[in-house]
C-alpha cells in the first residue's frame, strides 16, 4: 500500500515536495507536478475523479488570511464507500485552482481493489466492538462502512465509536470476519491538556497545555481563543525581532508538572483575564473575534534587571520581565499586572486611546480598573499576597508591601486624586511618562473606587455613595462599555465622564441610582 501525496502550489506560493517517492496521484490520469504549470492538468484530473465519484466534496472552508480564497476538502471514495483518511484539498480563488494537497490511497499502481460488499451487518460489528470493550461500554454515534487503508492492504471495515468509562474508543471492525482491525482512544477532551502548574508564589494552578512530541507545550487549546506562552530563554536578540514567536520557543514541560513560575503565571493569568472578559462582558478575546494571545517570558536574566511588563501592539504580545531578583520577582506573578497588560490589547482593538497625555492616562486607567476587577473576580478579597484589593502590582514584589498604585488613596504614593492636582502638561511633558499616563490615571482610578466603595474625596471633600462591592460588576460594565464603545483615540477625561454616564443610562436607565453614583464619582474627583 502506497500513500500518495500531492502538494502543488501556484500563485506565488512555494512548491512543497512532501514525498519524494510519490510520482503519481493516479498513474493513469494524474502526473506529479514539479512545476506550477502542471496545476491545471492536475486540477482536471481531480475534476474527473469528482465526476466519477472517486472524490466527493466534504466541506468548504473560507480562508482566514486571504480574503476570497476557499479550501474545498474532497473525500476519497471507492465504489461508493469512503476511504478513511483519503482526502484532497484544493485551494481556489475566483474559480481558479491555486493548489492541490492531500493524500489518496491505492496500491503500487495507484489503484484500489476492495470488495465493498459487507458480509457482516452493522449491528454485528457493534457487537464485536462491545465484546472487546469493558462491561459497561456502549456504542455511540453513527456506524459507517469505510475502506480502511492499512500497511498490509485496504480492508472494508465498520467505523464506529464505543463510549466507556471516560473514554471514547474508535473501532474499525472487519466487515467480513468481525476482527478488530484498529482501535484507539478518540476522546479529544481536555483531559490530557490540563497540567499542574506551580506559580511563582508556590500556589497550584491548572495549566492548559498541548501534548506534542513527548512533551507538553504551553498552548491553550481548551479556551476558544488560544493562549501561547513562549520561553525566550534570555535570547533577547531573537525575541526583539519577534522571531521568538515560533514553536521552538514555546514553553515546554515533559512531565506536565510545570514549575517555572514565570511561565505558569503568565499563561494561567492570561487565561483568567480572557475568562473574566468573556464571563463578565461577553467578550471573546482581546479583539472580540478570538484572536490568540502571545506571552513572552524570560526575556532577560534577572541580573539585567528588566523590571517591566508591557503589551506590544505590533505582534499583540504580552511581555514580562523577570524582575531583578532583589526587589522584583517575575512580572507575570501578579494577576493584576497580567490583566492590566491584556486590557491594553482590548483598548487597542476598541478605542485605541493614544498613549499620550489624558488619552494615555485613560488607557492606563481602564487597564488598572479591569486589573482590579479581574482580581476581585478570581481572588478572595483581603490584604496580603494573591488577594483582591484596591492596589496594583503588590504581588510582584519579593518582599510584600510596596505597591505601584492605590485606588483608595493615590495621594499616599504621590499620585493625584483630583483633577485640580493632576500632573500638568508643564511637568508631565510628552517626554515624562508620556504626559503622565501612569500618574494622572490615578484620578480615574480613584473615581472608580469611590463609585464602588463610596467615600469622600480628599481634595473636594465631596462624598460619593458607592454601590458596594456586591454591585461592583455594574460599575465595571459601565466603564467597559464606555471605554470600548464610546471613547475614541483622542478622548480626554471629560469625554470619559460623558461616556460612562451615557453607558450608565443605557445599561441601567436614565436617572437610575447608578447614573447618579457615576456622576457623583466624577464630580468628586473634579472631572466635569
Amino acid at each position: 500500500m502506497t500513500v500518495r501525496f500531492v502538494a502543488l502550489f501556484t500563485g506565488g506560493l512555494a512548491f512543497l515536495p512532501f514525498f519524494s517517492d510519490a510520482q503519481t496521484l493516479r498513474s493513469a490520469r494524474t502526473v506529479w507536478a514539479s512545476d506550477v504549470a502542471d496545476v491545471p492538468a492536475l486540477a482536471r484530473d481531480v475534476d474527473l475523479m469528482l465526476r466519477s465519484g472517486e472524490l466527493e466534496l466534504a466541506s468548504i472552508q473560507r480562508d482566514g488570511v486571504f480574503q476570497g480564497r476557499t479550501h474545498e476538502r474532497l473525500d476519497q471514495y471507492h465504489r461508493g464507500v469512503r476511504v478513511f483518511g483519503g482526502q484532497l484539498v484544493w485551494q481556489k480563488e475566483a474559480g481558479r485552482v491555486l493548489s492541490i494537497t492531500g493524500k489518496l490511497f491505492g496500491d503500487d499502481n495507484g489503484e484500489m481493489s476492495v470488495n465493498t460488499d459487507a458480509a457482516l451487518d452493522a449491528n454485528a460489528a457493534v457487537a464485536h466492538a462491545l465484546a472487546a470493550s469493558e462491561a459497561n461500554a456502549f456504542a455511540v454515534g453513527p456506524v459507517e462502512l469505510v475502506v480502511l487503508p492499512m500497511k498490509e492492504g485496504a480492508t472494508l471495515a465498520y467505523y464506529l465509536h464505543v463510549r466507556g468509562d471516560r473514554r471514547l474508543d474508535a473501532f474499525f471492525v472487519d466487515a467480513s470476519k468481525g476482527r478488530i482491525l484498529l482501535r484507539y482512544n478518540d476522546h479529544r477532551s481536555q483531559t490530557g491538556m490540563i497540567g499542574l502548574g506551580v506559580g511563582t508564589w508556590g500556589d497550584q494552578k491548572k495549566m492548559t497545555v498541548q501534548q506534542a512530541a513527548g512533551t507538553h507545550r504551553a498552548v491553550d487549546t481548551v479556551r476558544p481563543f488560544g493562549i501561547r506562552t513562549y520561553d525566550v530563554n534570555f535570547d533577547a536578540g531573537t525575541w526583539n525581532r519577534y522571531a521568538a514567536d515560533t514553536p521552538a520557543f514555546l514553553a515546554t514541560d515533559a512531565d506536565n508538572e510545570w514549575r517555572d513560575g514565570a511561565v505558569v503565571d503568565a499563561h494561567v493569568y492570561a487565561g483568567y483575564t480572557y475568562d473574566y472578559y468573556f464571563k463578565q462582558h461577553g467578550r471573546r478575546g482581546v479583539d472580540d473575534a478570538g484572536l490568540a494571545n502571545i506571552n513572552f517570558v524570560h526575556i532577560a536574566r534577572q541580573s539585567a534587571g528588566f523590571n517591566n511588563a508591557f503589551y506590544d501592539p505590533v505582534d499583540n504580545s504580552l511581555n514580562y520581565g523577570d524582575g531583578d531578583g532583589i526587589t522584583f520577582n517575575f512580572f507575570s506573578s501578579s494577576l493584576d499586572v497580567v490583566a492590566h497588560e491584556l486590557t491594553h490589547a482590548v483598548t487597542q482593538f476598541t478605542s485605541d486611546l493614544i498613549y499620550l497625555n489624558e488619552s494615555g492616562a485613560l488607557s492606563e486607567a481602564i487597564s488598572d480598573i479591569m486589573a482590579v476587577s479581574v482580581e476581585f473576580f478570581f481572588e478572595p478579597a483581603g490584604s496580603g499576597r494573591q488577594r483582591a484589593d484596591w492596589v496594583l502590582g503588590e504581588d510582584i514584589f519579593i518582599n510584600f508591601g510596596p505597591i505601584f498604585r492605590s485606588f483608595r488613596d493615590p495621594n499616599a504614593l504621590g499620585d493625584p486624586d483630583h483633577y485640580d492636582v493632576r500632573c500638568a502638561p508643564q511637568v508631565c511633558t510628552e517626554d515624562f511618562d508620556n504626559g503622565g499616563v501612569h500618574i494622572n490615571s490615578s484620578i480615574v482610578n480613584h473615581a472608580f473606587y469611590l463609585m464602588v466603595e463610596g467615600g469622600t474625596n480628599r481634595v473636594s471633600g465631596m462624598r460619593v455613595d458607592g454601590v458596594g462591592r456586591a454591585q461592583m460588576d455594574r460599575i465595571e460594565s459601565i466603564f467597559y462599555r464606555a471605554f470600548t464603545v464610546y471613547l475614541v483615540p483622542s478622548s480626554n477625561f471629560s469625554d470619559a465622564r460623558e461616556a460612562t454616564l451615557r453607558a450608565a443610562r443605557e445599561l441601567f436607565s436614565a436617572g437610575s441610582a447608578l447614573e447618579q453614583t457615576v456622576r457623583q464619582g466624577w464630580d468628586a474627583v473634579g472631572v466635569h
Partner: protein
Amino acid sequence: MRRIASFVGLMVLAMSMASEAQQEPEAETVTPSGKTARRFQLLVNGGLGSGGRSFGGVSTFTEFLEQGSSRRDYDGGGGFVFEFGGIYSITPEIGIIGSFELFSGDNDAVFEEIVPHPLLFNHSRSASSELTGLSYSENALHLGVVYSIEQPSITVDLFGGPSIFFTETELVTNVSTSSSYPFDELALGSTRTSKFSERPFGFNIGAALTYRFTPVVGVSVQGRFSRASVTLEAQPDSDPLAFDTGGFRVSFGLRLSF
C-alpha cells in the same frame, strides 16, 4: 433458564407426590380430630409486595487533576407477587414446604455527577437528574419446615427455612456529561443502564391461614418475611451497591390438598 427448570422440577415433584397420595390411600395420616389428612398440598398465591429497597453508592474518578464523583441512589417500589409451591406433610403437624416466588417491581434512580472544572481548582460543577421505572425482578426459591395446626375447615401453617433469590436489577451505569467554555455549567447527556443478576442466599419465615371449602379445595392468606443481601459491582472505582432483597409480603391464594 435455570429458574424455569427449577420451577418445573418443583412442579413435577409436587404432581408426582400428589399422584402418589391419591394412589396410596394407606399413606394418609389420621389427625387428632380423627379426620383423615391429605399429605400434599399444592399452593398458588398472588398478591402485592412492598418496596423499600433503598440503596446507593458513590464512585470517584480523577479528572482535570481533581477528584470527581458519580452518585447513584435507588429507591425501589412495590410490585406484584406470584407464588407456586407445595407442602408435604411428614406427620400431621410437621411437613416440608417448597415454593417458587416471582416478584417484579421497579426502581427509581437519582444520579448526580460532580466533575472538576478544567481551568480552576475547587470549582467543581455538578448535574443531577432522575430516572424512573428501572426494572427489578426478584424470584426466589423458598424451602422450609412447616408446622401445621389443624382445625375443622381451617389450617394454620407456620413455616421457615432457607431461600435462594434470583435478582435482576437495572442500574444506571454510565451518565455522559458535557460542558462548553467557560465550563462553569455541566450538562447531562445520555444515560446508560445495564441489568445485573445475583443469586444470594437468605431465609424466609411466615404463616398461612387456610380455609377449606372441601377436603381438597381451600383458600388461604399468607404472610411471609424473607431476606437476603444483594451485592452488585455496578461501577468501577466504587464500593459495591448493597441492598436487602425480599421483605414482608402478603398474598392470597388457592390450596389444593391431595
